[in-house]
């Protein structure tokens, strides 16, 4: 750029200044309004949307689908599409390093690449077209980032469409733009058609994409929630051996561990000497030599890091006398006179606390599973007798009231022992089961309400 052009530019700017405004108060007024607007927006976002809770990092959870921050999603998607290309798709660093580096390099050096002093858009059709296609591509790749490239039935249609919209059209448009670089009209047509077709194809992809139910990860954030979550997990995974109060010193009725002596885990010996971190490791790794299996996913168990945390919190706040437990809600809302309990509100929490520990897949339980409403009604070797609507002799009601069911063929042998084997249920729980079965096992709160006899 020669001095003459520079002088012209500076004079041109001086003329604009003469027609312009003062920084204080004109310009700064707009700035302040904008910043205030952003601040209010942030307050609203923080208050009404907040920060979604997510479980604690769990390096062992290999099933987790990793996703980068949202502003890198387009790059992530680009890499996935690029990987589908034949031949060059295998050379990973071309897409991860070279292409982003070149794009960023061009962007950085743009003042030295675009040397013309002209600023009005009508004289900058080529750079503006390139940038527009780039921005449209980035926005669209971000939008389709959740759509898989290969559908569950193996169809590659969605992946192909995405590759066309995200790679082929932009690359084709760039080639055309440079071919037409002296013809404004053709450049505009190229950009417009490329952008329109990219938007159209991406819209089709989004419309065809399988509707995924929003993943629900339940995260307990408040202390009461964490204690309740821990108690739920404890009663499923730990009660068999340690008892629901953690007091068991000699294991009974567990195959392979019969008569094994253990330290009661509700004792001070355990709670005062084992820190949270050690307790978590202990639950995760187990005590294989002493018969305790590993529970953490890292070592082949079922529990995530967060879940083991909750169990530890439950143990502390329930048995450790240095910790004062907050007020916890009741297991189920107390029943009024004539009210019929429902599975959803009353029975499910009871079953989860006292039954699922054994009545789930992989345990010795006469094939009676209780993890869902359907399972409770339709599984088990004695399914026809377990729950009979309106019948007090239903097996389930008998065994929870201390009446074992005897084998009809061999009268001195128990067919089903007393349930739960090592504990007597409290009267209000037995009452809930009784009312539930006498009312025909309603599932939802609405069903139960219809069956309830209103109290006068």
């Amino acid at each position, binding site marked *: 750029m020669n001095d003459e052009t520079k002088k012209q530019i500076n004079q041109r700017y001086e003329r604009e200044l003469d027609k*312009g*405004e003062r920084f204080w108060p004109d310009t700064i007024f707009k700035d302040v309004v904008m910043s205030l607007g952003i601040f209010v927006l942030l307050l609203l976002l923080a*208050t009404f*949307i907040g920060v979604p809770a997510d*479980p604690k990092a769990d390096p062992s959870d290999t099933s987790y689908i*990793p996703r980068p*921050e949202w502003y890198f999603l387009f790059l992530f998607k680009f890499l996935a599409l690029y990987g589908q290309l034949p031949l060059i798709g295998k050379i990973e660093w071309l897409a*991860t390093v070279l292409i982003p580096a070149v794009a960023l390099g061009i962007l950085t050096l743009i003042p030295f690449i675009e040397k013309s002093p002209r*600023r009005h858009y009508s004289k900058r059709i080529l750079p503006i077209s390139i*940038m527009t296609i780039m921005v449209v591509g980035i926005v669209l790749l971000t939008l389709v980032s959740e759509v898989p490239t290969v559908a569950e039935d193996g169809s590659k249609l969605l992946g192909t469409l995405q590759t066309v919209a995200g790679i082929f059209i932009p690359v084709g448009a760039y080639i055309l733009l440079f071919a037409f670089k002296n013809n404004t009209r053709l450049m505009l047509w190229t950009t417009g058609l490329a952008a329109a077709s990219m938007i159209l194809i991406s819209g089709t992809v989004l419309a065809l994409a399988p509707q995924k139910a929003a993943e629900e990860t339940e995260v307990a954030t408040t202390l009461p929630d964490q204690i309740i979550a821990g108690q739920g997990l404890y009663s499923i995974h730990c009660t068999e051996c340690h008892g629901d109060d953690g007091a068991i010193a000699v294991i009974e009725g567990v195959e392979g561990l019969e008569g094994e002596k253990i330290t009661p885990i509700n004792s001070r010996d355990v709670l005062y000497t084992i820190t949270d971190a050690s307790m978590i490791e202990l639950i995760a790794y187990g005590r294989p030599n002493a018969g305790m299996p590993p529970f953490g996913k890292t070592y082949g168990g079922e529990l995530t890091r967060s879940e083991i945390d909750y169990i530890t919190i439950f143990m502390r706040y329930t048995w450790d006398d240095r910790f004062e437990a907050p007020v916890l809600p009741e297991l189920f809302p107390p029943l009024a006179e004539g009210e019929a309990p429902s599975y959803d509100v009353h029975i499910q929490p009871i079953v989860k606390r006292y039954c699922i520990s054994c009545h789930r897949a992989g345990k010795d339980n006469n094939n009676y599973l209780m993890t869902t409403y359907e399972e409770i009604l339709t599984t088990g070797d004695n399914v026809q007798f377990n729950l009979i609507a309106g019948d007090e002799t239903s097996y389930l009601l008998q065994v929870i009231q201390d009446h074992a069911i005897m084998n009809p063929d061999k009268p001195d042998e128990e067919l089903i022992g007393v349930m739960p084997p090592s504990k007597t249920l409290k009267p209000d729980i037995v009452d809930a089961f009784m009312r539930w079965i006498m009312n025909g096992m309603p599932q939802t709160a609405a069903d139960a309400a219809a069956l309830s006899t209103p109290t006068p």
Partner: protein
Amino acid sequence: MWKNIYLWLDERIGFNDLYTSLLDRPEPKTTWWNTLGSASMFLFVLQGLTGIFLTVYYTPSPDHAYDSINYIMQGVAFGWLIRGIHHWGATLMVLVVFIHMLRVFYTASFKYPRELTWLIGIGLFLTTLGMGFTGYLLPWNQKAYWATTVGTQIAGTAPFLGEFILKALRGGPDLSALTLQRFFSAHIWIIPAILAALIGVHLFLIIKHGESHWPKKDD
């Protein structure tokens, strides 16, 4: 008495000079698009303030990071608000800086005499992304852990230097306490220091050259 204090300070600082050189400057007619730069700076200051509050309770170790943030959300008065602003402010800052860059590109404001301002601006854009990248790991939740795993992996695919970059970012072959520690250090000391310095230069250049005017047909 206030008058005497004012006069004493004025003698030493020179309010009038400040006023004429910083505030009472001529500008071309500006539009709402011209506010995005100052909005970015506002967000930077806001992120700085909320970030400082967060460090009071945050613990950068894998054992405690998650629980310390849970405590900020549940136990600290208005902790949820501070963290909420910091969380959404990060998202908004990336967005606002990006749109600001697009505005400068479309109005060709990077041309003479503002080329250096553009180069510094690219630096600001990259450091903002760096802030987002390092900050995302700090809550030490599943999203954070795996996003950083993937992010560092992608950086590790570079030819020749890949393994070195990967290990330098992670502080070892795997994500560990060291990764969290260095991301924390980068997030609260290294990158903000660079960012603040670049903002200083960027502002100086803007005041020196003035904001560019909206291009007209004859530009």
